[in-house]
């Protein structure tokens, strides 16, 4: 079961971790990306994520579907936020379950790497004296 979402609301980490997978899964691997309070040596006050919503949703689903098929995951949940994200809050969670652990590790790492390459979402860092768009992969 693959579920993906792009949402403005805070991510319900406890709920996602409690509901991922079933009784035949021996392994759950998760990645949580969080808004950091610094960028290089500058203090970051908060982040804002802009998304090309329709395309980002399609891409998130395609990437999760691909990973679930490739590593035979029994379930996979991916939630990415857009809009303002406060320091310490999660901007993304990826959780995958599988009978054995190697598949879940490989899948989660593939999903976050691929999201950072391909999903049309952009991060802006806000400082006390301005803001900058973060340079992504080229």
């Amino acid at each position, binding site marked *: 079961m693959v579920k993906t979402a792009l949402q403005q609301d805070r991510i319900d980490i406890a709920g996602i971790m409690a509901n991922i997978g079933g009784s035949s899964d021996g392994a759950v691997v998760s990645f949580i*990306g969080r808004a950091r309070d610094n960028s290089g040596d500058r203090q970051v006050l908060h982040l804002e*994520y*802009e*998304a*090309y919503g*329709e*395309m*980002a949703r*399609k891409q998130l689903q395609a990437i999760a579907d691909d990973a679930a098929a490739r590593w035979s995951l029994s379930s996979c949940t991916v939630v*990415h936020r857009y809009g303002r994200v406060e320091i310490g809050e999660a*901007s*993304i969670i990826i959780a995958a379950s599988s009978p054995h652990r190697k598949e879940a590790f490989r899948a989660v790492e593939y999903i*976050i790497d691929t*999201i*950072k*390459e*391909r*999903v*049309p*979402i*952009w*991060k*802006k860092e806000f400082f006390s004296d301005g803001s900058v*768009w*973060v*340079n*992504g*992969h*080229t």
Partner: protein
Amino acid sequence: MKIKIKAFANVKEAFGFDEKDLTVSDGITVREVIEQFKTICEPLNEFNGSLLYAVNEAYCPESTVLMDEDTLAIFPPVSGG
């Protein structure tokens, strides 16, 4: 024919709009649209080579020929996660 342009992040800021309807000649390519914008939008030149394109929500190369009612999205390298 008519196409829709969407712009995001610092490309949106360079353009000064996030969405615009445009009338273009039949058979125009993504590259030709971009070249036209570069003449009227100086900051766009700074993205040299790093811009990404999507037609109707799917990535495409610069050589893509646009069709009537297509939506062309122009944006910088992504930085989500």
